[in-house]
């Protein structure tokens, strides 16, 4: 029995952070959260990274969480601090990222009075969190904090928001932190139903043209070995979603890249032609399926997901399996027979070599695709890439081969531009020895450009590659293709980003040609600290392959005019 000691709310939170192994938190203080910072002052084991906008702190916690497959923590004050966290909270919800968000709130006597810097932030975050709490009694805080960490990382992970009034940070309690959390209405699934798994094995054993469609769930449950075992045992081609990039070595012969709106041509055609989809931890997002009514018409679908609400949400399934991917594959794999599908694999190999969407176009001009490929070549693939949103994100996924888990990160679900720079900061803090490349467009970069100050202050050695085409490129591409080239609001008049970086105290390099780019990447790699390279790429390059809105995967356009 541990001795019950009195401590205040701020200390309770810090103690739980320590217990949960948190060594870094990301945030920005304010009036309502000052008592928490005052407590944190006495916990040097927890390093606080000051961001310049709470949105940056939230995304950094998201990056940190993904990089270590653990829980990230971000904090902000009440009112505007908390509302600035809303975008990263929504993003973590869409991408199933375990982040605990701690916000300050006005003191309990002021709640509901429209006090200075008061926002009903738990009212705001209900639909964008896995769970949220407004803690009005400090005696509840130990349990709530422990529950927050438990809920964030179990089952389908997600953000948990804890809103703490100023006086609750200061109030004292001797309530202990519970050792075990039991929540009656919350029972995350383990392995899937045995009978269903047996049926899945039968379908796999009977299939002539199977594919594995691997999503984020493989990474969350760390089922990499099990996935590889299944794929190699039955010789099944592996195609991933955007968040599944890194689930399976992309240089493996059985890897057929990413599916979707800008997926590999051969991946989209393989899924359209297959007779069985083994779907592992994915939600059949509209960017994955194309026109749903024509999705994989010849295929039966096995769908493994830990969230029952994802099963049958978008596509009808032959075998629904509610369960953890890793635990499920451990039961499934022994039931699967050895097989080799030579005809099917031969067909796909041919398709891939005839339509190599993973190769940059053969072009003398310096294209955005070249930028990503040069980074891949210079790092020999030994880097983590944090992509922003838009064309840069798609090229970052297409032109780099990710052989290791947890090396590609992107805000795929919410699609919030401005993600890459702060998230890369979080990834680098989590994995200090990793080479981390932030691949961002010139538009997204400017959404959180202020975090250059954070990167400079803490000398976080991220390599920032701005794919600069002086446009919101994906917007321009859509205006060109679907709005008769009536460009409005897509062109960007940019500052000189290399000079901007230098002003922040970060080495800045401008690269206008292919040779410049290769040199700049070498220099960035040879520099210990952070470096920004402003890659001036061909402005008019469009992102292909593309499944146009309303089209089916089978209608993937390989290359635009």
């Amino acid at each position, binding site marked *: 029995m541990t001795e019950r000691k009195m401590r205040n709310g701020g200390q309770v939170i810090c103690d739980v952070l320590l217990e949960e192994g948190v060594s870094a938190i990301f945030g920005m203080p304010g009036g309502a959260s000052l008592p928490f910072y005052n407590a944190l002052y006495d916990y040097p084991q927890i390093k606080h990274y000051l961001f310049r906008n709470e949105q940056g702190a939230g995304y950094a916690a998201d990056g940190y969480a993904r990089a270590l497959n653990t829980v990230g923590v971000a904090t902000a004050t009440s009112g505007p601090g908390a509302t600035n966290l809303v975008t990263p909270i929504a993003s973590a919800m869409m991408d199933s990222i375990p982040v605990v968000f701690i916000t300050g709130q006005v003191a309990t006597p002021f709640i509901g009075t429209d006090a200075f810097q008061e926002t009903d932030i738990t009212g705001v975050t*209900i639909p964008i969190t*896995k769970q949220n709490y407004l803690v009005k009694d400090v005696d509840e805080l130990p349990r709530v904090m422990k529950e927050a960490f438990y809920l964030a990382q179990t089952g389908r992970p997600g953000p948990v928001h804890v809103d703490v009034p100023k006086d609750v940070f200061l109030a004292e309690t001797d309530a202990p932190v519970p050792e075990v959390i039991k929540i009656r*209405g919350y029972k995350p699934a383990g392995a899937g139903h045995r009978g269903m798994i047996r049926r899945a094995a039968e379908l796999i054993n009977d299939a002539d043209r199977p594919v594995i469609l691997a999503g984020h769930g493989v990474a969350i449950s760390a089922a990499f070995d099990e996935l590889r075992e299944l794929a190699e045992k039955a010789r099944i081609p592996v195609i991933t979603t955007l968040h599944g990039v890194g689930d399976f070595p992309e240089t493996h012969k059985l890897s057929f890249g990413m599916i979707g709106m800008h997926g590999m041509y051969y991946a989209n055609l393989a899924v359209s032609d297959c007779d069985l989809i083994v779907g592992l931890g994915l939600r059949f997002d509209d960017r994955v399926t194309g026109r749903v009514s024509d999705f994989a018409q010849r295929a039966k679908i096995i769908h493994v997901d830990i969230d029952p*609400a994802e099963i049958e949400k978008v596509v009808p399934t032959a075998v629904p399996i509610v369960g953890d991917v890793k635990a499920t594959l451990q039961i499934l794999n022994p039931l699967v027979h050895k097989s080799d599908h030579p005809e099917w694999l031969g067909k796909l190999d041919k398709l891939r070599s005839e339509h190599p969407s993973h190769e940059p176009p053969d072009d003398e001009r310096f294209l955005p695709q070249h930028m990503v490929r040069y980074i891949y070549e210079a790092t020999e693939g030994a880097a983590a890439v944090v992509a922003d949103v838009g064309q840069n994100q798609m090229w970052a996924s297409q032109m780099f081969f990710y052989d290791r888990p947890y090396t590609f990160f992107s805000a795929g679900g919410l699609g919030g531009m401005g993600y890459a720079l702060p998230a890369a900061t979080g990834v680098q803090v989590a994995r200090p020895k990793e080479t981390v490349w932030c691949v961002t467009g010139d538009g997204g970069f400017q959404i959180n450009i202020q975090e250059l100050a954070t990167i400079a202050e803490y000398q976080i050695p991220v390599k920032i590659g701005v794919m600069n085409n002086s446009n919101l490129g994906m917007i321009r591409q859509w205006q060109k293709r679907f709005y008769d080239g009536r460009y409005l609001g897509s062109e960007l008049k940019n500052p000189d980003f290399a000079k901007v970086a230098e002003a922040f105290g970060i080495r800045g390099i401008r690269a206008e040609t292919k040779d410049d780019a290769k040199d700049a990447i070498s220099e960035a790699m040879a520099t210990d600290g952070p470096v920004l390279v402003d890659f001036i790429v061909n402005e008019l390059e469009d992102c292909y392959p593309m499944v146009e809105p309303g089209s089916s995967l089978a209608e993937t356009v390989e290359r635009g005019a």
Partner: protein
Amino acid sequence: MNGQSTLVALVADSPGVLTKVATLFRRRGFNIASLNVGHSEEPGVSRMTIVIEGTGAEIKHCEKQLYKLVEVLKVLDLTEVDRVDKELALIKVAARGADRAEVVGLAQAFDGEVVDVSKDAVVVQLTASPYTIERFLRLAGDFGVLELSRTGVVTMVRGTLDKSNVPARRPSSNHRE
């Protein structure tokens, strides 16, 4: 929409749970016809009776979404189950002079109770199925319904909920263990 469904949700009685349930329905585009919340037989557990527009797969989806709320302990789709539906309504009906006796008679015919009589109106309390209340309202409309307050449906399964009165399409154990 083609018809309504009746769900019962048992939820942990914690702050904000009603908002969470209501927000979920709004966000996922479900229309609530009626929603009733109150204590259940177990302390700390509230019982919600929710009548929503829609049937079949939509409702199944709704059920799964409800289960994602940590506070939700159990969801039962009682649409096709043999059950008792009751609702309480207070209905103020215009009644002057000779009309008064007719309204009182109408209330009695529906097993209603006259809980207030004033110069211009009679307040009738009806505890009945929504269908019966609708019928009463149609007839009372001839006199003029001045005010109406309904609690929304509460429902209870007849006997115990087992295979004899549950349709075959219950979620399998695979759905939620």
